[in-house]
């Protein structure tokens, strides 16, 4: 009992962390655990962009950014601890990069009045701003991703998927199950046969799944994977000589980490992309000058320009733009989380603005409104070139089939509203 009491007393002293002014951006990152390989580049990109803004512009509207990093290890219990530890410091926005943790903190953050931005992950129906006041998932989400993939296949097959067989290899968790309903609805519309193939966490063992694919010979395989599961799946696909250009991953299954270990076998593998990658954007000159060369890069600073680094940077960039908008709306530079939310809801990203930020043709232009927190949900398709070790974009932005998705979003968010007794906003 003595040990326990002493532990608690010391922990009490430790928990009282200092907090002072500035704009606090918590980074619930994961640099350890089975998903660490993917968490690191995202966290680096996220932090480097904020460092850039601090170093080059002196912060957002004169307010310095204070980044509080907290390691979650992709674990929901640690995620809760991180959320509780940081929520008292007027955090601007949470971006946990984990669908599980996002689900966890959606009700809490809504009650505490803190915005969440789950960019391309999390609860898809949060796109309905009428129900989810504090949650945003622009510019694209899982259901639009699934629909974009199907639309791309339609284009490949000359507009007809009738009688085709499409398999979904997915991480058997909330994350991987998200697209299933959309793909089922779309299969009714387009007449393809839909096969679900779950892979359990962490996905290191997939022999039986790929044996099933070899036997069933689906025309296309879609993948919702994360972490080590991606590499293993691509390796297994190469082993059974599945045609790689018929294998398409979601944007979380399309980073260098996923294809490099497979070597030449991964050549031709495709994935969705909600933004461009590579070092060909002017913003990298500044990142190099102010952050990397100045020795202020996050982590080992060896991930610059990779797919997930770009995504972390994109997420940070959208957060900074929303904060700028919030400062403009509130008329003050020291904004509160509630004002940040207003800024996110009024966010407008145009191609001119992207070019001005040094990211021309990097992402899609979009506008967030009170009703729509999800953006248009466009995505491109990229293909891996194993010899050049490079992702090449092979399409322009493809639009999703909102006719199918919108009713699903309305249905799911209505169920949440009924469960949590929420009255719709934006009337």
């Amino acid at each position, binding site marked *: *009992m003595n*040990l*326990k009491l002493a*532990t*608690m007393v*010391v*922990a*009490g002293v*430790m*928990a009282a*962390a200092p907090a002072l002014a500035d704009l606090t951006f918590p980074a619930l*990152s994961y*640099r*350890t655990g089975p998903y*660490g390989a993917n968490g*690191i580049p995202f966290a680096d990109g996220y932090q480097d962009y904020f460092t850039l803004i601090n170093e080059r512009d002196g912060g957002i509207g004169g307010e310095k950014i204070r980044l509080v*990093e*907290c*390691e979650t*290890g992709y*674990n*929901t*219990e640690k995620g*809760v*601890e991180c959320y*509780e*530890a940081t*929520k*008292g410091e007027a955090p601007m926005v949470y971006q946990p990069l984990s*669908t*599980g943790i996002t*689900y*966890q903190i*959606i*009700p*809490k953050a*809504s*009650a*505490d009045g803190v915005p969440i931005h789950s960019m391309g992950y999390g*609860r*898809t*129906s949060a796109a309905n701003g009428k129900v989810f006041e504090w949650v945003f998932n622009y510019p694209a989400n899982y259901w639009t991703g699934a629909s974009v993939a199907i639309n791309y296949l339609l284009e490949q097959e000359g507009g007809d998927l009738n009688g085709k067989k499409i398999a979904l290899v997915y991480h*058997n*968790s*909330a*994350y991987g*199950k*998200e697209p*299933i*309903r959309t793909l089922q609805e779309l299969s009714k519309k387009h007449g393809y046969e839909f096969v679900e193939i*779950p892979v*359990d*966490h962490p996905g290191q063992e997939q022999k039986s799944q790929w044996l099933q694919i070899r036997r069933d010979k689906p025309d296309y395989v879609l993948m919702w994977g994360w972490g080590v599961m991606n590499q293993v799946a691509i390796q297994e696909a190469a082993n059974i000589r599945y045609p790689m250009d018929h294998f398409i991953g979601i944007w979380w299954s399309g980073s260098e980490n996923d294809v490099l270990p497979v070597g030449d076998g991964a050549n031709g593998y495709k994935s969705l992309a909600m933004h461009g990658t590579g070092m060909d954007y002017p913003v990298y000159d500044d990142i190099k000058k102010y952050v990397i060369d100045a020795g202020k890069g996050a*982590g080992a600073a060896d991930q610059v320009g990779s797919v997930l680094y770009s995504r972390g940077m994109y997420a940070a960039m959208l957060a900074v733009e929303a904060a700028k908008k919030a400062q403009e709306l509130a008329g003050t530079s020291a904004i509160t989380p509630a004002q940040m939310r207003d800024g996110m809801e009024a966010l407008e990203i145009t191609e001119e603005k992207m070019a001005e930020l040094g990211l021309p043709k990097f992402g899609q232009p979009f506008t967030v409104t009170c009703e729509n927190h999800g953006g248009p949900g466009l995505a491109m398709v990229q293909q891996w070139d194993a010899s050049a070790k490079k992702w090449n974009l092979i399409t322009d932005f493809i639009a999703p089939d909102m006719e199918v998705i919108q009713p699903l979003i309305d249905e*799911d968010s209505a*169920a949440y509203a009924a*469960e*949590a*007794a929420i009255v719709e906003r934006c009337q």
Partner: protein
Amino acid sequence: MLYREAGDFSTTYEQDSQTFPIKFDRWGYYVILAVAFLVIPFLINDYWANAVFVPFLIYAIAALGLNILTGYCGQVSLGTGGFMAVGAYACYKLMTSFPEISMFVHVLLAGGITAGVGVLFGLPSLRIKGFYLAVATLAAQFFLVWLFNKVPWFYNYSASGQISSPERTVFGIIVTGPNTEAWAKYMFCLIIAVLLAWMARNLTRGSVGRKWMAIRDMDIAAEIIGVNPLKAKLSAFAVSSFFIGVAGALFFSVYLGAVEVGEAFGIQKSFLVLFMIIIGGLGSIFGSFAGAAFMVLLPVLLKNILVGQLGWATDLAAHIEFMIVGGLIIGFLILEPHGLAQLWRLTKEKLRLWPFPH
């Protein structure tokens, strides 16, 4: 000097068989209860509730449950995570089907349902023992997680298979959902934990507990002196699963608020609780609490020291934390294989003699 039996006379059998025969212990126990019930609820904030006290109390309940089965009855189980999942999903189905009923009832009912499932998976223990039983309970672990992932009825057909706890009350006080006050959360878990610990203590020193221990020490001898192994083993499975089910229900509804079965109740949870009772001390109520404190609070403490105070990088701190906790576990087990409870027992022995060790 202060800690001694001398002068503390028992005049009745009740006094003679009380849990804390030494006055100093008794007072310590009352003081801890008084602090837990009368002081902490007024000081607690969200961080302390959600990151420290609530997980500690819930894991302590789970550790108590597993300790009854493994520590007292000697049946090794690796199905703790699966049984916690049964508690959580039973609680979810009850909460959503009967919203007007008190949360207290739901949690206990969820424990009851888990007890039933536990008995079912305890049946093989009548034929198989030791490591083989551990493998059989491992099957329960994987089967239950698979079941809750596979059958949409359990998660009310939600799109992602996540279950989230809606707002529910006890006597008009909100205890689940995002609007719960920190003290309400804490008190709800504390009351259940104290109640169950009290129950565990009295079960284990009564005839039921003695039968369990007889089975643990030597099952053939126990049978010869008239202990029915069927009843003893299955009652241990039932009581143990009840505790674990309650812990699972609280884990989902009060602590996390939303869970996903594979992530929250996977095999690592079974191991975590097993480590708690091994480090805390097998066959000890105090050991269950000490083990839960060690495994839950130490990582949080280390994180706050390394990252919060020393300002280390989060990934480095996370790795060092693993190494420190791992090192401490090995150290403790080498120095005292019977766990923290035995360490505490030895300390008490020494204190009794102090300052005259000979």
